[in-house]
Structure formats: C-alpha cells, structure tokens
C-alpha cells in the first residue's frame, strides 16, 4: 500500500520503538502532525517552545538508553531548536530531530518560514539530511537512528520539505543499514589492552578518571568492577557522576574547576592515569601546561579518536566502545599472573587520605539563612539518594553535583558541555515521562528557571509531578561569583530584580508553590513536596546571596592551584 511521506515518517518512528515525540506544530509539518493524529502508538508531547522539545527529548534519552525524538516546524521552529540541539551535541546525546521544510520548489526563494536548516545545524549535529525524494524517507530515518545511537552518539536531524511529506510511495522499513564511510570502533587492539594492564599493575600512584562516556556506554558496572579489582581511587567528571558510586570509599569526588581537593590533587600528582570516556576538557584539567608539568603515563579509552590527544598528549590510546574495552581489560586482568599490589599503592592512599582531611566541601551552615548546599544535602536525604536530578546551569548546578551523591548512572542530568540555562525543567519532563513512578527533581536558580518557565504549562497538561528545587539568591550567582573574584566586585547586570512571586506563578499554572525562608523549614518542606506524588511542587528556597562555590580552580590555573573556602 502506498503511504504519504508523513505517514511513512510516523511509521518509521513506530518501527524504531519511539514512545514519545516532543514537538510543536507549524505549517511545514502539518502533514506529519496529521499522520500523528491518526495513530496512538507514538505519543506526542506538546511543549511551549521548541527549545524545550529538544531538551525534553534529551532528558528522556539521558535517563534511558534510548534515542530521544523531537519534531519541529521550519524556520523559527528550527532556530528555536538550535540551542537544544547544540546542548545534546556537546554532551553526545543520541537524538533524532525531524524538522519540516518549505516545499522543495520554494527552497532558496526566501519563502515564508524558510531557513537553511541543514546549514544552520551542521556544526551542532552528528549528521543531518535534507530529504528530496519521498522514496528516501524510510532509509534516511533508519540511518538517522543508527547514526544517533552508534559510535559516539549525537543528535541527527532529518529535514523534510512539505511537498515530500504529502507525496506517496510504497513503504517498507529497511531491516538493516550500512554506511560505507561510517565504521565506529568496537573492540580495541589486544596489544593495547595488554600494555594498559602492565602500566596499571606497575602504578605506584594510580588514578582512574571517568567521564560521560561511561554513562553513554552503560559501562558503570564494568568501571565499578575494574576500580574495585585494582583498588585504585576513582574520580568522575561532571558528566560522569553516577558512573561510579559516589558513596564508595574509593570515590574521591568530582574533579575539575569545582572538584574536590583530593580528586584534583590526585589527578595532578598521579603516575598512571586511566581516562575512561572523558575528554580532558578545559573545565576538567584547567591549564594544560600546568597539568603537563607533572610526569605521568596516560591511558585513554574513548570511542572517538578525535577526543584522544586533543588537549592532553596521551601515551596509550585505546579506541573502542568503553563497555567493550573495559570488558577486555577485566578479562586480561583476571587472566594475568600478576595481581594488583595494594601494598605498593598504600602510601598513595595515605596521601589521598591526607588531602581528604582538608574536607574541601565543608561549608558554614547557619540557623538564620538557608545555605544552598544545605538544601541539596537535605534533598539527598529526603529522596534517599534515589531521585533523578536535572539541573540548570550555574552555582546550583555545581552544588547539586557536589552534594547529591549519585550512586547510579543516568540519575544526574545536566548540560555539562554547552552549559545551557533553561535545560533543567524541560529535561526533567523527559525524565519523568520515561520514569513515571520515579522522583524527578529539577535543581535550578531563579535565573535559569525563567529561561524555559513556560514549560510549567506542559507539565500541567501532561500531569508531570516534578519537584522544582529553586535556589533563589536574587543573583546570577556564578556570574556574581566571577565578578567578585575577577572583576573587583563590580556586579554588572548579575542581579535579578523584579522577580515574580514564584508561588503565585506556580499556582497560576495550576501547580503547588512553596516559599521556604528558614533553614529549619527546609527538610519538612521537602518531605511535604515529595509526599505530593501527583502534583508538581515549585519550591522557592530563599538562600544566602553571597554564598560561593568552593573549591575553585580559576580559569587558566592548574589543578593544584585550587582555592578552598577556608582560603578566603
């Protein structure tokens, strides 16, 4: 039977097992919406802004191991989506975006709502396609899902002109896909594995540094087994939190700009560093020259060869799927005659213990005013460490990363690479849809939340009982912190004036609003909020305006040049 391009598009989504498509209709996608209307297998979530559609698909993908799907119209639909697409691209999130385009005969004529979608999105997608023939839709969507999920994942966009979506052709979904120019690495070279094991077993001051690649590859089980087998300390990047259980004694905390003292010192002074699915980015190693002053051997496992030796020269590169490579490493270690020598690394652990003694995450609590760190600690306790936490970007993000101890992967959902304010709320919607019975909290600030606050309406429509934990310090806190440190306390435009009454705002959207002003009210309020299982609760925590995030490695400084709270 012949189907229209629009019907084929939806059939393809069904074939790929897409549960949800996050989107917003418009002229160029009307045929596709019509095709959505006549089926109920793929559920459409109507957002209030296309940026949120992408973030929601992103949150859905991050909290599951599935591909997120979004649908937007041409022109402004696409340009609104670009922030979301770039966010997903920077964090390597598997996603397929279907966008409408003006009819093929109008392309290039500056038609109404025309934009060069393939051109605009090219630098922030793994790949994109413009479909010019209805016969190509099925094959292209098949390729899009394959590209999005395989190798180093990423967003893939399929642009479908309106005339193509209403033309008809026979439909058959391809059972397999092959792209002659695309062969993502799987298993690594056995020789490299053997060399890595020798290096690891000979280490006196070892360190394991694991990033978002562990989460994306679903390799936290293997990572945990490896870390325990070796008896080495392990640190996670912001993107890798939950990849190794944060409550484990071998975990030394997050590293980087706001990482723990022990994690950063360990990175700086180790003699063998095993990097797993991480990319030595500027927020992690700070000043590369300073980092390179210490001699160490680096083993780097990553699926993307271009991540290896990009910023930091690596001694032993292992290109492959992180889970497969860790399996190979474990097999080699189990088969090796030599065993990890805990005596040999005992002095190193003693050193780490001394660094830990600095207690670098300590903060001065107060009976008078709510400290933001305290809210996160209580959030951790009240949710028993088992919630899905999304965040926006800024101080609250760092506090959530520092004080919520993630023991499981895919529980910590944040925009690490692009640092997109406005991510948290829509991402939480995607997470809640994927996990309807789970506690999902969005940790945010009064700056970030206002960048996608319209999604409170989506939450009402689809009855998503999120808990919004807003740390309200009446400042763009991270900007203010940098201005305090580096710009002589000149707080240029970093205050948030004329804030709405968030309680009334939440109520206006049909949700529950709470304002919490006293430290003693924090825990009871959180308990009440999480007790309201069917309702979205918007919690406005009035926090200390002057609190800063510590430890801090300033931009351009080295990891051992960290500032602790006590230094100021």
């Amino acid at each position, binding site marked *: 039977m012949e189907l229209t391009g629009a019907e084929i598009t939806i059939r393809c989504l069904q074939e790929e097992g897409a549960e949800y498509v996050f989107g917003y209709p418009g002229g160029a996608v009307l045929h596709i919406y019509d095709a959505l209307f006549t089926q109920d297998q793929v559920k459409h979530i109507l957002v209030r802004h296309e940026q949120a559609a992408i973030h929601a698909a992103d949150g859905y993908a991050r909290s599951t191991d599935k591909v997120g799907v979004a649908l937007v119209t041409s022109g402004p639909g696409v340009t609104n989506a670009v922030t979301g697409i770039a966010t997903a691209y920077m964090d390597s999130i598997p996603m397929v975006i279907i966008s409408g385009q003006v009819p093929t005969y109008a392309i290039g004529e500056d038609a109404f709502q025309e934009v060069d979608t393939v051109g605009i999105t090219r630098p922030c997608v793994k790949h994109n396609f413009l479909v010019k023939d209805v016969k190509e839709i099925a094959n292209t969507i098949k390729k899009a899902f394959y590209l999005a999920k395989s190798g180093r994942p990423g967003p893939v966009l399929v642009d479908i002109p309106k005339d193509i979506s209403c033309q008809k052709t026979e439909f058959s979904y391809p059972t397999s896909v092959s792209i002659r*120019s695309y062969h993502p690495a799987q298993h690594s070279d056995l020789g490299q594995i053997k060399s890595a094991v020798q290096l690891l077993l000979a280490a006196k001051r070892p360190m394991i540094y694991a990033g978002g690649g562990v989460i994306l590859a679903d390799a936290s089980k293997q990572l945990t087994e490896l870390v325990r087998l070796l008896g080495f300390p392990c640190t996670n990047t912001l993107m890798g939190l939950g990849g190794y259980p944060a409550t484990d004694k071998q975990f030394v905390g997050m590293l980087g700009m706001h990482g723990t003292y022990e994690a950063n010192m360990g990175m700086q002074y180790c003699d063998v560093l095993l990097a797993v699915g991480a990319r030595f980015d500027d927020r992690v190693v700070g000043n590369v020259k300073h980092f390179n002053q210490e001699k160490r051997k680096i083993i780097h496992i990553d699926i993307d060869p*271009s991540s290896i030796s990009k910023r930091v020269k690596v001694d032993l590169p292992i290109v492959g799927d992180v889970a497969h490579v860790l399996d190979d490493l474990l097999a080699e270690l189990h088969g090796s005659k030599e065993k990890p020598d805990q005596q040999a690394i005992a002095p190193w652990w003693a050193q780490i213990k001394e660094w830990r003694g600095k207690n670098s995450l300590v903060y001065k609590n107060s009976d008078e005013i709510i400290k933001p760190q305290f809210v996160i600690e209580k959030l951790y306790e009240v949710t028993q460490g088992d919630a899905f936490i999304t965040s926006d970007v800024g101080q609250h993000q760092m506090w959530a990363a520092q004080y919520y101890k993630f023991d499981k992967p895919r529980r910590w959902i944040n925009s690490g690479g692009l640092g997109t304010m406005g991510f948290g709320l829509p991402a939480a919607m995607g997470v809640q849809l994927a996990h309807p019975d789970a506690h999902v909290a969005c940790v945010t600030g009064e700056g970030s939340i206002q960048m996608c606050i319209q999604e409170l309406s989506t939450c009402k429509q689809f009855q998503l009982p999120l808990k919004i934990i807003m740390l309200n310090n009446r400042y763009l806190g991270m900007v203010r912190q940098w201005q305090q440190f580096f710009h002589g306390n000149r707080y240029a435009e970093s205050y948030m004036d004329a804030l709405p009454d968030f309680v009334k705002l939440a109520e206006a959207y049909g949700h529950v609003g709470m304002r919490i002003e006293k430290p003693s009210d924090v825990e009871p309020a959180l308990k009440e909020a999480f007790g309201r299982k069917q309702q979205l609760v918007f919690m406005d925590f009035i926090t200390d305006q002057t609190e800063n995030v510590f430890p801090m490695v300033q931009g351009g400084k080295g990891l051992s040049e960290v500032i602790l709270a006590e230094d100021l």
Partner: protein
Amino acid sequence: MRHIISLLMENEAGALSRVSGLFSARGYNIESLTVAPTEDATLSRMTIVTSGSDEVIEQIYKQLNKLIEVVAVMDLSEGEHLERELMLVKVRAVGAVREEMKRMTDIFRGCIIDVSDKTYTIELTGTGHKLESFLQAIDRSLILETVRTGASGIGRGDRILKL
C-alpha cells in the same frame, strides 16, 4: 608545517560545506582546496593544502575522518607523493614583449592557449613553487590576471587512495 591531505567523500550536495565548515569552525588553515568527481560518480576527491603543528594536523586528520560523508583520508605528505597545480595567466603582450613571453612560456613548458592583438593567455602546470617562479620570472606589470586551481595531489607508486 605544510601538509597536503587527500580525501574521498560521497559526491553529495553539502559534503563540501561539511569539510570547509569544519576547517573554519575549528580554526584550521586552508591554503587551497580542490574538489571534483572521480571515475566513480558516487565519489568526489578533494585535495586540501593546510599547515599546522603535528598536533593540529593529527586533529585535522581525525576530524575529517569523523565526518560521516568522508570515505577515506590520506595525509599525502607523510610519504612520497606528487602534486600539480594548473595556472592560467593573462598578460599584456605587445611589440617585443610578445617574443619574450613566448620564450618564457617555452622555458617553463607552458603553452599559450589564447592570443589577441594585445594579450596572451598562458597555461602552466606544475608545483606551486614552479608557478610562483614563473610569475617572478616575467615582468609583473604585464600580468592582467591569474587563475590558479590549487594543488591536486596523488601518492607515488603503490600509495593509492581508493575505496
């Protein structure tokens, strides 16, 4: 250091912009870039002349390989290779200069492919260095226009870039 990189890619609309976009987005140099279909109509072959430190060249190589439409990449400068560039030069040629231009063209093994009463158009093929030398050897004030294709490169002997 100067590198000459050859690549095969899908002969599809937009593939060229993915490559050029990559270079501009990541701040890599492009000295020249040539592209045309190959004997296999589904493939285009591109030659890029670039420069950078070893680290930058390594990244360029990896980033090019990462592009979905790029089928194969070879850094020709890592081994024995040949490169050629085509140049067309239109010069003012009147009086005694006509004989002199003809002589210089012969010396550089070029040929004159268009003649008018006041101009010659000279076709010259060679390495970029040879083309430069020719331009320096003739009276610069007589040059009306020059067109260069940029280098095309190929490996020597058994060094073959093929699917």
